[in-house]
């Protein structure tokens, strides 16, 4: 089930919160746990084994976490490794096995390919909940410990529905206090509902709209794009990705507030960044934080000389790329980010910071071009798209409709401009100034119902980030 579905908005959400607010304080966590299992179960009803996988994984991890805490020292460490193998093993089986086998088979001589290249459908949220549970296991090993009788609380943390399938990736210590005791106020309900509606609007009214342009560009075929349409296409994808994922994160955060919990911020105006380093401090913040805390710093971070710093950066960005998908384009994408961030570390970032217009101009190119590598999984098609961006021919006899950018500009031009405006700090400033007026409240109500209308009319598509 996704937040931007009628079944969630008109069914699950009202029923859950009606029960939640009527439930006595000591039963709220239990209801949240059961609600989350129901939420996940409804989403994977075609694959009930995925629900079973989540439940088994949860039980196994709680057991491992408890053992790490009980044993401590080297024995605890061994249990931690076992936990890592268990969690990353499952992730590998579902997400990377097909890719691994495919490439291994290519390396083997003809006729020797014995490994099956099956790519099973990914259990929703597996990349997110794997990282979340691993963060908990490592934290337990690092001394956070396991409080006796906290099993149900940890189970609730591991599968809370607001962040179960697309993050943000929360650490246990961030919500431990709230899971023990939290306040539910009218102010939080108001704040959470507003945040949820803003996120829903970002997803349904902006991401889905401009996403249609990217879909149409794909339907035309990259060979047949005019140069202006090729640029409009990657602009559309860049906006779609941002409003899609940021919208989801804001909905999750809003639901958290409605339940009296504070989830971390996942996006902070990333398209305002002046450098790629700055961009990744603002984009998918909780993923960047995970890699920093559990990979980069344990590897030595930037404190062991330039060579090791670059080695650590390379590892982190390759892993970031691979986390997003099992395909060579994600590896290439990670390498491109490493190259840009590496150059920035060598002094470019300082210059960009000193000259903001230069920084914006640099990011105006770097953001869509890196997203292009991310979006196009077929590397030969990626080369075709890059050629079209430069206006180069991709072969003889290729059909290009020279007026295509005018045609699509008429349909999507205003949406692209609106998206551009919404990437600036202006809407946030206006909201902070006028957010609590009647006009703003009615405006948000209109956003909610218009989103529902669009979903009802079928102008919907799944979240982009669910495939990762």
């Amino acid at each position: 089930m996704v937040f931007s579905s009628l079944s969630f908005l008109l069914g699950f959400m009202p029923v859950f919160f009606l029960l939640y607010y009527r439930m006595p304080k000591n039963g709220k966590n239990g209801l949240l746990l059961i609600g989350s299992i129901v939420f996940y179960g409804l989403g994977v009803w075609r694959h009930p084994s995925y629900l079973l996988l989540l439940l088994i994984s949860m039980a196994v991890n709680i057991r491992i976490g408890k053992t790490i805490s009980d044993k401590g020292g080297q024995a605890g460490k061994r249990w931690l490794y076992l936990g890592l193998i268990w969690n990353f093993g499952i992730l590998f089986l579902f997400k990377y096995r097909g890719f691994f086998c495919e490439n291994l088979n290519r390396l083997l001589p003809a006729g020797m390919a014995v490994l099956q290249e099956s790519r099973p459908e990914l259990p929703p949220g597996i990349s997110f909940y794997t990282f979340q549970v691993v963060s908990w296991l490592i934290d337990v090993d690092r001394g956070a410990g396991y409080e006796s009788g906290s099993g149900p609380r940890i189970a609730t943390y591991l599968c809370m529905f607001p962040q179960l399938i697309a993050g943000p990736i929360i650490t246990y210590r961030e919500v431990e206090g709230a899971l023990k005791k939290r306040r539910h106020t009218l102010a939080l309900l108001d704040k959470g509902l507003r945040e949820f509606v803003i996120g829903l609007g970002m997803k349904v009214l902006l991401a889905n709209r401009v996403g249609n342009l990217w879909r149409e560009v794909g339907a035309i075929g990259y060979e047949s794009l005019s140069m202006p349409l090729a640029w409009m296409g990657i602009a559309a994808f860049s906006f779609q990705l941002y409003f899609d994922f940021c919208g989801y994160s804001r909905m999750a955060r809003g639901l958290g507030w409605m339940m009296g919990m504070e989830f971390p911020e996942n996006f902070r105006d990333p398209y305002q960044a002046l450098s790629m380093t700055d961009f990744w401090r603002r984009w998918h913040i909780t993923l960047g934080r995970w890699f920093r805390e559990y990979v980069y710093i344990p590897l030595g971070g930037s404190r062991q000389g330039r060579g090791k710093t670059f080695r650590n950066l390379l590892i982190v960005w390759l892993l970031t790329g691979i986390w997003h998908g099992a395909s060579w384009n994600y590896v290439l994408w990670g390498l491109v980010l490493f190259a840009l961030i590496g150059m920035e570390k060598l002094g470019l970032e300082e210059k960009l910071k000193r000259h903001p217009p230069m920084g914006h101009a640099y990011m105006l190119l770097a953001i869509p071009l890196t997203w292009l590598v991310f979006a196009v999984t077929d590397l030969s098609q990626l080369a075709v798209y890059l050629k079209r961006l430069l206006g180069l021919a991709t072969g003889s006899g290729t059909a290009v409709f020279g007026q295509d950018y005018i045609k699509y500009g008429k349909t999507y031009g205003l949406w692209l401009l609106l998206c551009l405006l919404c990437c600036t700090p202006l809407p946030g400033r206006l909201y902070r100034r006028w957010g609590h007026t009647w006009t703003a409240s009615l405006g948000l109500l209109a956003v909610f119902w218009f989103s529902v209308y669009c979903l009802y009319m079928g102008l919907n598509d799944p979240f982009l980030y669910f495939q990762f």
Partner: protein
Amino acid sequence: MKKKLYRRFPALMIGSMLLLSPALLLKIGLEKRPGAQKDEGAYVESLVREEGTLPAQGGPLTLPGASEQASQSLSRTEAGNDKTVAPEAVSSVPSLTENETTPEETTQEKRAPSMEEFFSTVLFIGDSRSVGLYEYAGLEGADFFATSGMSVFRLWEKEVSVPGVGKLTLEELLKQKQYDTIFLMTGINELGYEHTAIVKRYGDTMETIQALQPETVLYVCANLHVTKDRSDRDEIYNNEQIDWLNGEIAGLAEESPAVYLDVNPLFDDEQGALRSDYSGDDTHPYGKYYQEWGRWLYETCVQTPRPSQETD
């Protein structure tokens, strides 16, 4: 004061939810109940998204006097003539070497128009796939009365910008310009409608076109399949439904002077679905394949005897 402020938006949300949700849920439930009649409104978001209302279902769409003229033109062909053309038919036309060419055939070949000449007297009537032909096939000189989401239910009411002619209705266009050949390429967007209404409206449309342009050769074109992936997951736009509709269109052509053309074998995979490597959205071929389609249309129409030639 603060509390009042915080009460406002939740109150608005809860109030509107209580008011609107039951009605909306009831409507969704009614639409989804087993055996429920497909509602036109629910499928406005059809093959290609386009806002607007759909015309009322059923009801003939014949212009005054159209039926009489159409029935007169029916006599031009013999009943039972196999007028269905598929890519195999084109490939089965033997290619003759220079030495093998007979004098009669040479004369016929000389008479065959070039691609530019042929398409200069052609009109395409259709949906997004016809738009694709206009944009990517390079069919210079042809007119296109086509728009995304077009269906026979809105064909006669909608004003369309025809490049080089202007914005007008189909009836105005057919009264204004004479065409040697007309390709009718709609159908897939109709699949959300009730089946008998689709066939009736399609037949009426054919009659009306033939009544307005009695000298033209009308080719009714099969709807292109969708990919297997889409076909397997789509309850409406799947190949079983498309094949059913194409069969009905072929049947209508059998009973009229029109010729049925089936381009699907050109783009199909071995399972009879649109090749997945030919399409980025599981529905439309990539731009580059429209050239192939246009070329096929030309070869088919020029190399296959026209119905009037067969009966003469």
